[in-house]
């Protein structure tokens, strides 16, 4: 009977192993039947099943423990906007410093171009006619630069008195013209015009390039005639000649010249010019310390106008930037 006992023992162990699944209803119908048949006759397996069921019951009643903290993943940092906000101030400071530096250069350049002389005092139209005669050793080539720079013309008063007087001062040095390289500056005053505020910047750049022979005298005079203050008020006398036209005409020694380019673009409307001779003389009496080359002096007025414009723009910009920087710094401090 030992084979039978061994067989029973094997069955007992097999059933024992299936009790767990039997508990969960995870056995095939056939297996379940076998387990139930064995259970009916096996107190050990009955106890086994009972205690297992109790254990599983208690285990399933283990409470959920509370999560000690949240396990969310940190969202990629978003203080980026804050950082961007604070960079605002250094940028403003840098821009202010840069503009200040540029303004310094502009003023320095202005001073160099105007030979460190103070700009003629208002009232306010300044027209300078710069002429350079070629050296007498080379009579065939003469460059003449004519520039009119009118800044910040403020015209007040009546329009009737519009007239232009020739600058008598020009006549005096005209005779000696070829001898010296000398810029001729003529300061023009603007006679009162009716309640109009005009801002004008005008520039004439005229170059007298060499032309063969002496043919050009007439042409010269004629072309210079065309140099009028365009855009002058309709109330101005039609015969109103430009200063630029007068001045070179009284330089008989600068004969072999021809004007190649001559522009004049005043933005002003009602402008009348009457140069006080005193000022003109004063300007003329000062010799140019600058032995610049002809081409350079031809460019100089244009550069000067650009520099003046830059000074103005940079000045305004600097004021705005300083204000913005101070405001931004104060705001940042208040945020901290």
């Amino acid at each position, binding site marked *: 009977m030992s084979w*039978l*006992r061994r067989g*029973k*023992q094997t069955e007992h162990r097999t059933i024992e*192993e*299936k*009790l*767990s*699944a039997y508990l*969960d209803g*995870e056995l095939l119908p056939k297996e379940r039947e076998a387990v139930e048949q064995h259970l009916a*006759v*096996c*107190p*050990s397996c009955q*106890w*086994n099943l*009972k*205690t*297992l069921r*109790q*254990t*599983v019951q*208690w*285990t*399933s*009643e*283990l*409470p*959920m*423990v*509370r*999560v*000690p*903290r*949240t*396990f*969310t*993943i*940190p*969202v*990629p940092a978003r203080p980026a906007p804050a950082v961007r906000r604070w960079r605002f101030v250094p940028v403003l400071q840098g821009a202010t410093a840069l503009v200040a530096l540029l303004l310094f250069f502009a003023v320095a350049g202005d001073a160099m171009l105007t030979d460190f002389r103070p700009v003629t005092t208002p009232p306010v139209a300044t027209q300078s006619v710069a002429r350079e005669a070629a050296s007498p050793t080379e009579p065939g080539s003469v460059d003449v630069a004519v520039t009119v720079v009118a800044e910040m013309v403020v015209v007040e008063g009546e329009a009737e008195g519009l007239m232009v007087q020739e600058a008598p001062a020009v006549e005096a040095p005209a005779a000696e013209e070829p001898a010296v390289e000398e810029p001729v500056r003529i300061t023009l005053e603007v006679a009162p015009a009716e309640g109009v505020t005009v801002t004008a910047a005008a520039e004439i750049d005229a170059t007298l390039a060499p032309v063969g022979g002496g043919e050009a005298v007439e042409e010269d005079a004629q072309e210079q005639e065309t140099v009028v203050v365009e855009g002058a008020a309709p109330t101005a006398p039609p015969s109103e000649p430009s200063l630029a036209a007068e001045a070179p005409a009284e330089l008989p020694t600068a004969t072999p010249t021809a004007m190649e380019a001559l522009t004049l673009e005043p933005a002003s409307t009602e402008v009348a010019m009457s140069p006080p001779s005193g000022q003109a003389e004063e300007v003329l009496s000062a010799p140019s310390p600058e032995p610049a080359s002809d081409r350079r002096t031809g460019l100089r007025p244009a550069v000067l106008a650009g520099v003046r414009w830059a000074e103005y723009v940079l000045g305004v910009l600097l004021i705005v930037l300083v204000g913005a920087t101070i405001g931004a710094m104060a705001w940042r401090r208040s945020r901290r």
Partner: protein
Amino acid sequence: MDEDALIAAARKGDVRAFNQLVVRYQGLAYNVAYRILYDPDAAADATQDSFFSAFRAMGKFRGGSFKAWLLRIVTNACYDQLRVKQRRPTSSLDALPVEADHTYYLEDSSELPDEYVERQELNRVIQAGIAHLPVEQRAVLVLSDVQGLSYQEVADVLDVSLGTVKSRLSRGRAKVRDFLQEKGELLPRRYRLSDEPEAEHTGGHAQ
């Protein structure tokens, strides 16, 4: 937002969407880790590691049960924690803080404080019994009996066959039962298992 949408967004790297999944599953994940590791700090570490790994591996999630996928990551993180623990053995399991810092939800408010304390003592012994199991049996038993997953779900989480689940669970339950019986004298009478009938193993029932 439903889970599929959250999963789809998380797969594209949306941390916020993934964090919504974290909020949904962190209780389950932490509890599984806690029951397997029987150590609140290690369980928290394993849970956090699991969610970081899961977020990195979202691209590899190929549909199916997100819960099962996540729990596999959690059990693997638990195995890692146990390996670390083996390398640096600390105090014995019995000396570990036994749920001292965890308050249990009273499932039945009619339970008297005495009964509550007694029940806590039973839970402590059961948890200790689980902690004495081999790791594989522990994982199966926690997933099945503590968390209530089906055999098939457990098989999916642990990537083993149904038969393996059955046998591991059977052995694990028996060991916990034996542990309970061994410590039974420490428990109140109603939490003691009855004694095994004598001599039936010798084949007495066969007659």
